[in-house]
Structure formats: C-alpha cells, structure tokens
C-alpha cells in the first residue's frame, strides 16, 4: 500500500512540475521551444531524480537490512555462519506473514522485530530522499526557466540518454547472468575442487544443510550429467533432423501454396506449445508406451527412460529445425534451381546437389541452434527423465541432465552456503558456456552465408 502511495505522490509531483513549466511557458512570447517541451522538461527534472533514488530500494534489502538483522542475530545467539541465509529467509517470511507455522523462539521473534524496524527506517529514509530530490529538481528547473531555454534540445538529450540506458539493460542482464554464475561458481569451487566437478564420475549432491542434520556427504562429479544431457539431446536430434529437414525441403520446394498455408501455422503451433506440456505428454503417455513396447519385445525399459524424454524433445524441436531450414532453403536464388533444371537435372538432383549445398551453412547453423536448444531444454527432462545420475549410453535406462539437476536442486528453500545449492550455479555456468559457444558458432556460420549471397 505504501508503495502505491509513494507512486501516486511521485506521479503528482511530476505532473505538477510539468504543468507549471507548461503554464509558465504558455504565457510568454519569444519562446525558444514550444510550451509542451518546457512542460516535459520540468516534468523530467522531477521524475528522473526520483526514479534514480527509488532504485535504492532494489539494493536496500541486501545492502542494509540483511546485514544489520544478521549481525544482531549472530550477537544474540550462536547461529552458525552457515545458516544465516536460511534464517534470514525464515525471518522475512514470518515478517511478511508468509510462514504459517508459529515460532516461539525469542531470538527469532526479536529478529523479526528488528527486521521490521530496520525495514521501516530504511523505507522512511529512502522516501525522504525521494521527496527531497523531487522537490530540489522542481525548484532547480523552475529557477532556470527563461524564454530562451532550449527546452526541446534538453528534453531530446534526456530522451536519448534514456534510450541508450534502455539498450544497456540487455547488456546488464548478460553481465548479471555472468557475474551471478561466476560468483557462486567460485564459491562452489572453494568447497569442491574444480577437477572433482569436471572429471568426477559420481554425482549425488545430497548433503546436510544444517550441521546437526544427518546425511551423506555429497559427490559432485558432473560427467554423468554431461553424458545424460548429450544422450537425450542426441536422441532428440536423431528425430528432429531428418523429420524437420525433409519437412522443410518439401515445404520449400514441392508443396503447393495451399498446403504451405496450412502446414506452416500447424508447425508454428507445435513450436508454441509450452515445454511443460511436452513434459506431461512424455511422462504420462510416451514413457509408459515405451515400457509396454519394450516389455513386448522382451527388453526392460525404465519408466523414466532417456528415450521417452529424447523422443518428445525431438518432436519439440522439429518445428524449430524445419522453420529455420525452410527460411534458408527458400533464400537460395531461384536462378540456381533454373540453371540446374535447365541442365536436365531432376528436381531431387537439383535439391540435393545445388540447393542444399548452397543452403548448407544456414542449415548447419539451424542445427547448431536446435542442438543448443535441446541441451538447454528443461521441463521435459525434469518431468520425464529421472534424477538418477547413471552413466550409460543405453536409451532405455534412466539418466539425468544438467538442467534437470539445476531445477531439482533449486526448487524449494535453499541455503546459499551449501555446496549443493552452489553446484547448481556451477552447472548453470557450464550450460551457459556451452550454449553460448554453440550460438556464437551458429551466428558466425550464418553470417558467412549471408555474405555469400549479399
């Protein structure tokens, strides 16, 4: 509620300033800029400082409130340093009324009180700064008002800065991803040796979260996950590449326009279906089907077989392969086809020997992107592949993947100090690097291809 009120106050202050600027300018002649720009200028000078100050709220929690609450907590009681994240989460949840279980622990209650107090103080402080900065902006821009103020130029300069700042958000996102992954991964490698992670062949991250809890110590060898990921992604590509490529060739080279008008939207529907749907389909329908078929053939298949996940993932990336490939195949100039047909080549020969070789770089890049997507795909493997980190190439057995492990580890409450939680970030960094490599490779191949026909 208070945030809504703040918003309304800030908005009305901005509007007031804008209206004042507009009004003042309107009554003058010999203006440099039209009154509307004076209004905008006055409004921006109030809104922008307030916006900048309000971003303090984003970091106030981790920078001010959390350290203060935790330092108090550790003074009063013997909380292990390891548990602090966990305790803090509990405290905020109690304070926000999210945790329904009652606690009578005096320390916790006190910490909740101190959390609420600190939060209120911080909020009041930021709110005051916010209003002060708004008022200062109001006063400053008002004072400097002249007929000759180049208000339009000033507004446009600010707009350009805002535009540039917006395009920086994408960069900041990447930076955020890289920093978050790197930082937590480094913390992970402080506890688990780098080589154990990259070359170890045993994965079982179960680990005691609290010191007094009994539990096995974890093993963090990621090789089984890499093998599982590659196995499932390879099965998927085995399905998607022939089906997707032949569909693309047929649609681009043979199909009547009418068929294309129906087939393309159908493939787009297939592409738009959320992956959680495919996961449900894989777990509920395909996996039992595979078990039944295998039993009939005298084989034994796990109910969470790699084949089920890979098969459904293959179906999922068919439209991806086919639509990207169709684009590159259609981009091959018609004159090449004419040239080949005029030599007496059949259509199939023309496609195989002229069109496809010409489109090859584009197709390769499409396949790389599809592979990258298969590796990063999460929900299908979470729902249909198992959690057992088997190292096997048998598609009927159960394997687990990088993405499935990340989600499994991080769903639910977690402490950012345990190697189990941190291992998810190490896996995330591996995944990020791998897909990034594939994407860069794909973009490079496709750029070469564009140059060829430009």
């Amino acid at each position, binding site marked *: 509620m208070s945030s809504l009120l703040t918003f309304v106050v800030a908005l009305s202050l901005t509007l007031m300033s804008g209206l004042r600027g507009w009004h003042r300018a309107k009554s003058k002649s010999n203006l440099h800029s039209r009154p509307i720009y004076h209004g905008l200028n006055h409004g921006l000078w109030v809104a922008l400082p307030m916006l900048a100050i309000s971003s303090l709220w984003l970091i106030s929690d981790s920078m001010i409130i959390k350290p203060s609450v935790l330092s108090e907590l550790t003074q009063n009681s013997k909380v292990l340093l390891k548990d602090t994240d966990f305790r803090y989460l509990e405290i905020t949840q109690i304070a926000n009324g999210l945790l329904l279980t009652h606690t009578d622990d005096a320390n916790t209650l006190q910490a909740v009180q101190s959390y609420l107090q600190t939060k209120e103080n911080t909020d009041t402080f930021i709110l005051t700064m916010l209003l002060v900065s708004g008022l200062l902006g109001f006063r400053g821009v008002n004072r400097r008002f002249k007929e000759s103020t180049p208000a339009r130029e000033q507004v446009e300069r600010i707009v350009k800065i805002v*535009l540039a700042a917006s395009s920086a958000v994408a960069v900041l996102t990447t930076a955020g991803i890289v920093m978050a992954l790197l930082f937590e991964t480094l913390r992970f490698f402080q506890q688990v040796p780098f080589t154990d992670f990259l070359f170890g062949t045993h994965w079982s991250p179960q680990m005691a979260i609290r010191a007094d809890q009994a539990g096995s110590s974890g093993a963090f060898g990621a090789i089984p996950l890499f093998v599982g990921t590659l196995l499932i992604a390879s099965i998927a590509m085995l399905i998607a590449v022939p089906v997707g490529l032949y569909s693309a060739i047929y649609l681009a080279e043979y199909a009547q326009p009418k068929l294309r008008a129906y087939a393309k939207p159908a493939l787009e529907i297939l592409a738009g279906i959320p992956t*959680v749907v495919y996961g449900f389909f894989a777990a509920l329908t395909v996996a039992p089907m595979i078990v039944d078929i295998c039993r009939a053939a005298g084989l034994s298949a796990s109910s969470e077989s790699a084949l089920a996940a890979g098969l459904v993932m293959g*179906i999922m990336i068919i439209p991806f392969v086919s639509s990207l490939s169709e684009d590159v195949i259609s981009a091959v100039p018609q004159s090449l086809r004419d040239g080949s047909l005029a030599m007496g080549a059949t259509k*199939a020969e023309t496609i195989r020997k002229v069109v496809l070789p010409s489109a090859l770089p584009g197709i390769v890049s499409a396949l790389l992107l599809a592979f990258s997507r298969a590796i990063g795909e999460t929900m299908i493997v979470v729902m249909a592949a198992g959690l057992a980190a088997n190292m096997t190439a048998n598609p009927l057995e159960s394997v687990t993947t990088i993405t499935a492990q990340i989600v499994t580890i991080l769903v639910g409450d977690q402490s950012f100090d345990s190697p189990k939680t941190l291992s998810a970030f190490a896996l995330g960094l591996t995944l*990020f690097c791998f897909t990034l490599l594939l994407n860069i490779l794909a973009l490079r191949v496709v750029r070469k291809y564009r140059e060829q026909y430009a």
Partner: protein
Amino acid sequence: MHNEDTLNQKNRNRSRILADFRFRAYGILGLVIAGSALLFLLGNIFSTGYSAFQQTVITLEINLDEDRLGVTSTASPEEMQEANVAKVVKQSLYDLFPEVKKRKEKRDLTKLISLGAELDVRDMLLLKPESIGSIITLTVPVSSDADQYYKATLTGEQFKSRLKENQKQWLQTLIDNKQVIIKFNIDFFTQADSRYPELAGIGGAVVGTIYTLLICLMISFPLGVAAAIYLEEFSRDSFMTRMVEANINNLAAVPSVIFGLLGLAVILNIFGMPRSTPLAGGIVLALMTLPTIIIACRSAIKTVPPSIREAGMAMGASPIQVTFHHVMPAAMSGTLTGTIIGLAQALGETAPLLMIGMVAFIASVPGVPTDPATALPVQIYLWAESAERGFVEKTAAAIMVIIVFLIVMNLLAVVIRNRTRISNK
C-alpha cells in the same frame, strides 16, 4: 549430333525419376510424421482433459442441527470455525442409506463426498448463522474417486477404480435417484489449487499468470522499444554498439533455466524482491522477453523506408521528432506482433518460475502482484507431478486452457500483421 536415347540411358533416366519420387516421398513422410505427432499430442491431451470441464455433484439435504453442530445461531465467528460441520454432513448421508450401520461401512459411505461439502457448510454458517436449526439443500462435489468412477462409467472406459463394491452400489443408487448428476465445472475456472483434486481449479494460477505477464509487459515493452530505437536510429556503428547487438542476439538463445538462476541470485537475493510472487516472476520473464521485443522492433524499424525520415527532416523536425512522429507509428505493428509472440513464449515458461519459488502450494487466488502466487504452466507442472488420478484430467484441462490462450495470442498477432498490411496498400 543426335543424342538418341539408348536403352542404357533410358534405364538410367528411369532410376533417376524413381529417385526423384522417393525423395519427394521422404518429404511427405517428414511432414506426415510432424503432423501426426501434433495430432497425437493434442488428441491425447484433449481426450484426457475434456472430462475435467465437468464435475460430478451430489445434492444433499443437510439438517443444521444445533446439537450435532455444537453451536447456536448466536455464536461468534471463532466459535463457528469450531462447529462440527463434518457431523451434520455425514448424518445427511447416513439418512440416505439407513441400512448402513457398521462403523466401517459408514466410513466408506462418507468417502463418497468431497471435503468441499464441509467447507461449503462452514461458509454457509458464517454467512447465514440464522440458518442453524433448519434443513438446507446443498449441491456439493463428490470425492475425486467417485467422480472418476462415474465419468468412466459414462464413457465406458475401463480402469481400476479405488472404490469398493459397496461404494459403487451406493453411488449407483444415488445416480439412479438423480441425486448425483454431472454438470459443467465452473469451480475449475474460479478456484485456486487444492490438495483434493475435485476441489482444485486454475483460477489462482490464471490470475497469477495474468499478473506475471502484465509485469513482464510493463517492463519489457518500453525497455525493448527504447533499446531498439536507440540501436536503429541513434547509435553510431561503434564497437560498443556491435557488442550490444551481439549481446542481444546471444541473450535470445540463452536457456530459460539460466534466467531462473539470475532471478534467484540477483532479483531475489540481491534486490530482495519477494519470493514466489508475480512481481519477481514478471521481472525474470521481462528480461527473457526483452531480446525478442528488441529484435522484432528493430526489424520493424528497418522496414520503414528512409524516404519517410528524409521527408520529416526536410520539414525541420529533429531526429527525435522524426522517430516518434513518423518512424515509430509505421513500425508499431511489427513491434506489437513481436511483443505478442514474446509474451506467448513467456506465458509458457515454467523453469525460471519454478526456481524463484512460484512453485509453492497456494490455495487462494492472489489479490495483488506481490502476493505469493503460482502461474498456469507451473500449476500444470505441480499437478502433473501429483500422484492422484484425479489430477491427471485437471492437468490436461489446464493444458487445454493454456493452448487456447496461446492460439488466441497468435491469432491476435496475425490479425495485427494483416490489418496493417492492408492499410499500407
């Protein structure tokens, strides 16, 4: 000079034409496989899920007896909470089958109706305390097992019901008496999640999804458009710009689970956004959607002919004015189409939301975007992981709803695209 077709040549040509035919057949086969996979998937989900749009209900006459309830009509709301509603609901069932005497059989009988009956009666007491002492008629859902059994008998489907023989007989009697009927399941659309399949609905998840997508749209659309304008119209082709471009292209292909990690480590832990809320979910999805919108908006801006810009400049408009008065209106439909497609992707995203805690069990419909909530795809995941058979049809039905949403969004994008294509002519 004349190349008479020799026999050899003829054979060769025949085999080449056969090869051509085969190649074409592979293409058709590919399309057929893709098409039948789509049909099988959709058919499978439809046949599993359509029954969830119906609900088996029982009409009970409940005697709100003061003695059995243990409260009077003047009781305070707190006392009402303690009222023994279970007893009156059970009694109404016993009254229907006076021959049931054994305690074990009585327990079997009460298992035919849902716990929802007791909740409904309690709501009734709180709302209308004066009804205590009277007999009311209430239509309540039957238990999930009974619901599944009845639906299966309607379609003739064979499955191993958890109902015992005597329960099946009682149910059949009630069906014959028209006390148990099947009706459209409006609760499915209005209720939030529940531990009991017969009471669970997608209402909470839909509201959560709408909040999440609104937040996502409010953040990603202005940022995406602004970034695209800057990159297309104002940036000089410097090293920095190329970096930003490469960055956006790569960001578009980063797996969604990585965005979940970002959300967890930065948005929840550093920015202290509230966990499990549409606010945090919307921010994560906005960062994911941003590259899609930027790329769509940029290509829309690229298609605006330079002559329009020159015309504007020649009239003495500043670059900013030209951009906002002439270029952006022309590029708007392409941008909107891209935005809708980006939002449609965000609608189906599950993994990042799981990781920022929108996976929690939430039995109430969220009121504001900072309330803990779940989203439709996450709800699908949660139900899909549940063991009860009753949740299977709910999952499939929720999938049908999300696919309808997706199709509507895609149609909207197509309509926008076509409309501007006509108006441009």
